[in-house]
């Protein structure tokens, strides 16, 4: 029983990180109908910004951790806006395939730039948050890192929902997603809204990167690839473009992976994650929480 509960916690903690990265994919897709494959590398830049920022703050302190978290979120938000300006904006209005290929190009650029600047060797990420283990009766253990992941993911999830549903800029984002031409006709500044979307999505990636690195403290320039792909699966699983869907998809994927490993199939964990993607595309292409949309002709 304890083992089952422990595996449940393991799975949810893993899933929460996937969810956090998936939120970024879903945000950009929701507004622009385009998969930003560079997202997973912004995630890596987030972790590395955290690594360098942490040199200026005391380790294992809440204030220092918050500073590092916010600092790298800002760095990545700026990076996201720059990427959008330089790489995606000139191609706006072209086919989605062009944008997709550009995104893969940006992703490779960031990875190789990372290898050039930071070196290909894994670095150890410092302990930002105070580390503690909470042991319950029967040997169930929850680490402070896992609690932090849940807390930050939940917080950002609700903040995001609030921004999208309750604020002016959120309304503009939804208007743009509904019909970009009509939105600009009624006075929405499309460029500014899209920049904001990228800033928000990239800040989420940075938060994901920091949390991932505090839980798995070994970072390298290619660290984003696999979690990024998994988060993409999570976003599609939940219904891409849907904020709650990204969260649900992330948690489900984390649990599925943990179950596969717990049952002794650890070598199949990645295979199962991607098999989930194929299955969902075959059986329910709009995802768990997605709505069927009529294709405009």
């Amino acid at each position, binding site marked *: 029983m304890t083992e089952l509960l*422990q595996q449940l916690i393991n799975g949810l903690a893993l899933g929460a990180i996937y969810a956090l990265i998936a939120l970024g994919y879903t945000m950009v897709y929701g507004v622009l109908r385009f998969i930003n494959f560079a997202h997973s590398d912004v995630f890596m830049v987030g972790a590395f910004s955290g690594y360098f920022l942490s040199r200026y703050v005391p380790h294992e302190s809440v204030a220092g951790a918050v500073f590092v978290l916010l600092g790298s979120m800002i760095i990545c938000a700026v990076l996201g806006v720059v990427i959008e300006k330089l790489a995606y904006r000139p191609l706006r209005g072209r086919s989605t395939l062009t944008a997709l290929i550009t995104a893969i190009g940006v992703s490779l650029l960031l990875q190789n730039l990372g290898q050039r600047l930071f070196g290909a060797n894994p670095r*150890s990420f410092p302990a930002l948050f105070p580390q503690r283990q909470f042991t319950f009766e029967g040997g169930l253990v929850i680490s402070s890192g896992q609690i932090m992941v849940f807390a930050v993911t939940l917080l950002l999830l609700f903040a995001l929902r609030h921004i999208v549903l309750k604020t002016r800029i959120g309304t503009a984002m939804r208007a743009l997603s509904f019909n970009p031409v009509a939105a600009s006709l009624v006075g929405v500044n499309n460029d500014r809204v899209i920049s904001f979307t990228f800033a928000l999505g990239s800040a989420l990636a940075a938060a994901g990167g920091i949390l991932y690195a505090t839980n*798995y403290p070994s970072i390298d320039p290619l660290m984003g690839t696999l979690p990024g792909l998994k988060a993409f699966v999570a976003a599609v699983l939940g219904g891409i473009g849907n904020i709650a869907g990204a969260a649900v998809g992330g948690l489900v994927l984390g649990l599925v992976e943990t179950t596969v490993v717990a049952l002794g199939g650890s070598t199949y964990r990645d295979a199962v994650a991607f098999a989930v993607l194929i299955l969902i595309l075959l059986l329910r292409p709009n995802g768990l929480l997605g709505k069927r949309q009529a294709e405009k002709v």
Partner: protein
Amino acid sequence: MNTAPVRILSLLVAGVALLAGCSKSGGGSEAAADAIVIGEFASLTGKEAAFGQSSHKGTQLAIEELNAAGGLLGKPVRYVYEDNRSTPGESATIAKKLISRDKIVALLGEVASGRSLEAAPIAQASKVPMISPSSTNPKVTETGDYIFRVCFTDPFQGKLLAEFARRTLKAQKIAIFSDVAAPYSVGLAQFFREPFLAGGGQIVAEQKYTGGDKDFKAQLTAIKSLKPDAIMVPGYYTDVGLIVAQARQLGITVPLFGGDGWEAPELIQIAGSEALQGTYYSTHFSPENTDPVAQKFVAAYRARYGGETPDAMAALGYDSAMVLADAIRRAGSTESAKLRDALAATSGYAGATGATTLDANRDASKPAVIITVKDGKFQYVETIAP
């Protein structure tokens, strides 16, 4: 694992990296035409870079000492090396290039058995003697009669770890947690299992991971519920660091132990010194060794690399070049068959890691040391003779 997007991405990455010219050739490119050229392929960057770098620095020191002493057979030694970025699929290409383009007389490398196994068939087919400094998987030298190594093998390491677990740790029930993607890890787990079971021990769990994974909690939770007396992790330091840290986070307090793949300062950085209390590994060399050759090597290494203390990989990298130099001197030639025979006849060569004798299988038999981590420092525990 090998999903199409990952494969395509990594192919593209490889392409970009090639264009960027990531590989380096070092050591006096336009040296005298009649120099003796020694080639090396190494993991200078990437996952096992700490090993590759140590080993490479050891080899570099040896070559410099040889040249300072007037070279070999009256000719200077030229050293050509290339990085395989710790990734599979590079080493064979590098070996081919070094052999056909640089005309090397012998090939040194690699730390990881998996990558040595890629280059070995090339060296064997071209009849260029290859010496691996620290690949312990037995298959490496089984490739053919031109492949040698200057370290002990996994059957020996597995046997001594089994003995250590039983005698020093007094463990009856062991869980094994191995990396399915590394021949080194799979081999060492297997060579541990047999003698441990034969000695009356019990293996309660065998869990697996894939090198490069970050989350090991699911497997460790499964291991914890079976209450082993100790956990054997025959992996490489990047993964081992995360495994040890996560095991302690889950409240696993029993000792963890493994082989020479653990030894790197990065292990302590990743896992943290607190989590590493009560962990042990076997290796080839301890800088605390009082043997004069070892001490001379430690002093020379410190002087050359700004006070850095050499580890086992550095000592083996040094020995691999020195054993080769010894064989070239005895052969009196760099002609491949003669050099091979001289290498095979290596007996009692006094190296930094102790007396090296190459047996009929072209493997070295030499003692091993057990190291523990105490208060963030590697500490010598005991020496186990072959």
